[in-house]
């Protein structure tokens, strides 16, 4: 049976961005519960490739991705497009870069 397409925000409790030092932008996705975490992990919705695509950057600009079962979290980090505070930088704390992840599509297997 077809169901409405799901997005990452349907599974996560917190989706946030922040500087990790002046040259990295790190994203934390914290899930609502174990089932949501397992569903998204299994769906392969959050990969270096999908994140690069969501931000329109080459995949080598995604410096790391970690699945953190103890924190029920997925963590992904981008190279900052501009160094923090460099000319043209638009977000000193890097804390408003999360929006594209909210709508990242999550395709689950139909049961």
């Amino acid at each position: 049976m077809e169901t409405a397409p799901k997005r990452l925000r349907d599974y996560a409790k917190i989706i946030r961005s922040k500087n990790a030092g002046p040259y990295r932008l790190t994203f934390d996705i914290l899930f609502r519960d174990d089932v949501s975490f397992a569903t998204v992990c299994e769906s392969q919705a959050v990969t270096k490739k999908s994140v690069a695509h969501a931000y329109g950057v080459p995949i080598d600009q995604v410096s790391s991705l970690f699945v953190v079962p103890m924190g029920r979290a997925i963590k992904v980090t981008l190279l900052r497009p501009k160094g923090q505070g460099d000319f043209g930088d638009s977000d000193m704390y890097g804390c408003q870069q999360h929006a594209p992840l909210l709508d990242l599509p999550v395709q689950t297997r139909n049961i």
Partner: protein
Amino acid sequence: MKSITVLTPTGTLGYGFGAEALERGMTLAPDVIAVDAGSTDPGPHYLGSGEPLVSRYSMKRELNELILAGHKAGIPLVVGSAGGSGCRPHVDWTVDIVREIAREHGMGFKLAWIYSDIPAERVKRALAHGEVRDFEAGFALSESMVDETVALVAQMGHEPIAAALERGADVVIAGRSCDDSVIAAFPIAKGADPGLAMHMGKILECGAFSAEPFAMDVMVGIVNDDHFLLEPGSAARRASVTSVAAHTLYEREDPFHQAGPGHAMDLSQCRFEQVNERRVKVSGSRFIRSEDYWVKLEGVRRAGYRSISVAGIRCPTMIARIDDILAEARAEALRYFASNRFEIGFHVYGRDGVMGPLEPQRTITSHELGLVIDVVAPDQELAHGVCHHVSGNLLHTHFPGQFNTSGNLAFPYSPSEIDAGPSYRFSVYHLMKLNSPLELFPICVEEL
């Protein structure tokens, strides 16, 4: 080993904490109050200018409460990354406030302060010996970049703070410090397992950000032989396994492996357990001593002087052509001043002002745009002149499809240009090898 309790009042000293939370936290009989007061997070300005991150009012108010609480309980107070960047003017400013508080209360205690400024010559010597390496800056450090750098600090480890405590200091004001070391210094000095103390420091340094609901507020950590416990000060909050484990991710790239001065942390085998409604137990944090002692350098250079202009655009025909109009305004200014000694940029809110190149939505759907014209030039007069020229040009420019010929920008302010003063940029974010943990962090002690 006797258990050691650390009370951290907030994530950044000067950003506040609850009176109830501090009072309740103090009933857990902490052995030390330890708090971080800075970071690179607010950007390069504070290190470059020496201006403190928070107001003197905020710093004095919060230091006053903590000094009184520590004095009453007979326990020391440790402040790390004083003033925001931990540079000499920030340490001196904080020390001056501590002296004033002591004077006002007629208190006597031993005050220690630790500088973290690194002489350029020392870095050059390290460069010559191949003892500097890039951390994440993406470029190799050169002698000329060190010469351009106007302020340079290194993040101290726990050792200089522990040394100040061992000299009997009741209040320690430390310059730039690893935030976890600020919290871990006292427990390590008293014989705690450094892996547990350091991991506890990584979580406590943000105060009650690791609790739920999270806030800039009091958090208490208790380190024992083979685990540590976390509990928020305020009865209105709790620590949960997910709130604590999730916080281990915050503001860092690798949640499992983190290097610090003289060590690396392995958090991959950590266990988090809920021991009661408000308390979480953490074990399995491993401290791996490294052979050499490297510290992280942070330096900034002055890129010039900034002027900005803020304006709104409501005209739909102008919004439709905004990219071309801004590109032309920029090109015209370069021709007019016959120079490229300055930078002109635009933040266009309603288009991609927040995310810039990372913005996936490329079409404008807003009925109005906010524009910040950003100019950095070698001197303030030129920056102001260029900024005014660009805003004046945009105000009166003609474009195809124009209906309104009386002016294109809605300025909220007169003057329309704001001089923002010197503009700093990070120029050093590299690791340097030290001869010893104490080598570049001189400790001063004074009996008040």
